[in-house]
């Protein structure tokens, strides 16, 4: 009986909380994002989950709307934005991956009075054009330049950018940045685009890297567009017998690449710190909706951060908590 009373009290309280929440018009935020089965988006998800505490403490809520596949990226993301509009949210956080497909939906959200924050893909110019309040994320080209310059600083002369997703604007910008960055430092670089049949097959990627290194003996730096690809590239370098001469870098990282950085088998990883992207964009947006704050810093760049031997230990402890 006592149990029942407690239950009733809890129910009554939660109903009351819900009522106050909707009366106070607290931030109701939808975050559009990628599938959480890759290392990158699971960190975005953690940022969303962590920022949720703050939003909920103020009576609001946060939902994560994820894509089921990447096959139809732009239209699918636009569809999720429209889903969020129809759910009556007060704020939307969305990556502007394919502006041609998504801009219309984002404009529709803005004109419906919903506050929009661009995250992960986009730019400040785009945010202004669409009426979004800010852009939180990194600039792939600048990240590439940072990677290229890092290679240059450590003495590399000829860098290969292994692109397992040729044609994707993000990855092309990364590789272009690497090539320009090493160019600034007086070296040279080129891209190795891999066919779609190699995607997700570490052996095929390792062998492609090995073959390229044996064909062109002047390559002394290899950078991959993803952390998993770096595992494969490391094996390719080792098979080519060039561990001493060819340095490895990667965009993003996983536990194995951090182990390599710690052990010296990998030079560095360029990190766009995805955890910060969602943590900051959700908190900034909620605070804007709830309290009318505005951050003068725009765009809010979360990268490029470089992980190398100098900061590997603190990074590793972040990894064990799922945030890095």
């Amino acid at each position, binding site marked *: 009986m006592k149990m029942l009373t407690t239950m009733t009290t809890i129910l009554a309280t939660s109903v009351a909380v819900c009522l106050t929440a909707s009366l106070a018009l607290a931030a109701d935020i939808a975050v559009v994002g990628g599938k959480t089965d890759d290392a990158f988006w699971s960190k975005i998800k953690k940022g969303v989950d962590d920022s949720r505490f703050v939003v909920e403490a103020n009576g609001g809520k946060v939902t994560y709307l994820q894509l089921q596949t990447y096959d139809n990226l732009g239209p699918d993301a636009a569809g999720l934005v429209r889903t969020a509009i129809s759910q009556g949210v007060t704020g939307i956080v969305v990556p502007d991956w394919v502006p041609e497909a998504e801009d219309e939906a984002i404009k529709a959200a803005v004109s419906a009075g919903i506050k929009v924050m661009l995250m992960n893909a986009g730019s400040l110019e785009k945010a202004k054009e669409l009426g979004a309040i800010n852009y939180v994320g990194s600039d792939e080209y600048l990240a590439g330049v940072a990677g290229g310059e890092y290679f240059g600083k450590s003495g590399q002369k000829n860098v290969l950018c292994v692109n397992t997703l040729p044609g994707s604007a993000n990855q092309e910008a990364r590789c272009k940045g690497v090539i320009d960055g090493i160019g600034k430092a007086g070296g040279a670089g080129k891209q190795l685009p891999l066919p779609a*049949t190699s995607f*997700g*097959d570490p052996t095929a990627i390792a062998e492609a890297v*090995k073959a390229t290194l044996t*064909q062109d003996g002047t390559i002394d730096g290899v950078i991959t567009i993803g952390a*998993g690809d770096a595992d494969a590239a490391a094996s390719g370098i080792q*098979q080519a017998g060039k561990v001493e001469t060819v340095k490895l870098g990667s965009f993003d990282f996983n536990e194995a690449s951090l182990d390599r950085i710690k052990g010296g088998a990998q030079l560095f990883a360029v990190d766009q710190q995805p955890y910060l992207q969602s943590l900051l964009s959700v908190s900034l947006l909620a605070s804007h909706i709830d309290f009318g704050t505005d951050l003068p810093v725009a765009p809010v760049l979360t990268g490029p951060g470089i992980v190398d031997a100098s900061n590997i230990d603190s990074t590793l402890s972040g990894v064990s908590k799922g945030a890095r």
Partner: protein
Amino acid sequence: MNSKTASQPLTIAKTPSAPDASGFSIGGLFRRPEAGAFLGLFGVFVFFLVFGSIDFLKPAGAASWLNVAANLGIIAFPIGLLMIAGELDISIGSMIPAGSMTVAIISGYYGLPIWIGIAASLGLGVFVGLVNGFLVVRTNVPSLIVTLGTLFAVAGLVLGLSVLLTGTTSVALKAPELAKFLFGQFVGNTFQVIIFWWLALTALYIFVIHYSPYGNWIFAMGGDKVSARNAGIPTARLTICLFVLSSTSAAFVGMCQAILFNSAQVSAGMSFIFNSIISVVVGGVLLTGGFGSIIGIFFGTITFAVVNQGIYFTTFDRNWSSLIIGVMLLLAVLMNNTFRTMALSYSPKKK
């Protein structure tokens, strides 16, 4: 029994002992089911020797395509047998990461002995195969749909459990010496040890499929399942066995990858679905079932791997690689089809 069922399995059944009355002959060799696949492979070799460099056949170069072929081939055999029996298994796409994540989480994240991780990884393969097999046999839903369901179900399960248990989607694994030696070393710093597993399995499959009654049962099932069952072949049990074989093989390849690359990711392996079916078809298995051979699949897998990796030994701009892969595969299959037609319509001259 209709004539199709009767003639097709018989054609195959006879071929392993090809030199019958007439003894050995070049013509007889060309009429074997795998001859087309071999010639396709030969053509691809010549192409890359002409446009590439001889490095391609030196040990390091050969390892380039042998490593890819071995990983793919171990999965292509059971996929080919399923296709011969008129079924399909696309859940292998998520069984590869499931196999690698299982061993990485158990032995890498929790630090339990590697043998427990390996056993769990293969055990998961057996389990998913049983689920696939029972669903296909009991519900009569096409196996493409059943395994499409398990493809997503297993992928979701692996992702959910991985994030729940480890907080990440990529887990590192440091395997002890013996496991590394057996499943994930580079022999001579360049050949993945999985090549030897692949060769051993090839021999085993050739024996079972072409020299034991089970092989003929599979061909008969692909020809006409009802007649096969009426003839006393345990079609349900055989179907379940084949599904167990394919998902366990996929888990095995995933497990070897995790040990070799010291790391496992949740999202990987989807390209294996398409690549294994391509290899099998290039190897001369009919999409409609009932026809094919283990040696053919073996050559088909090598052809696919050579076409994929050969491009790195040429001077072509890498942006063209997909185009070249497509054209080469089409040519290989065309060559294969021509020879199959010749073989099937051959009638020996009267002496």
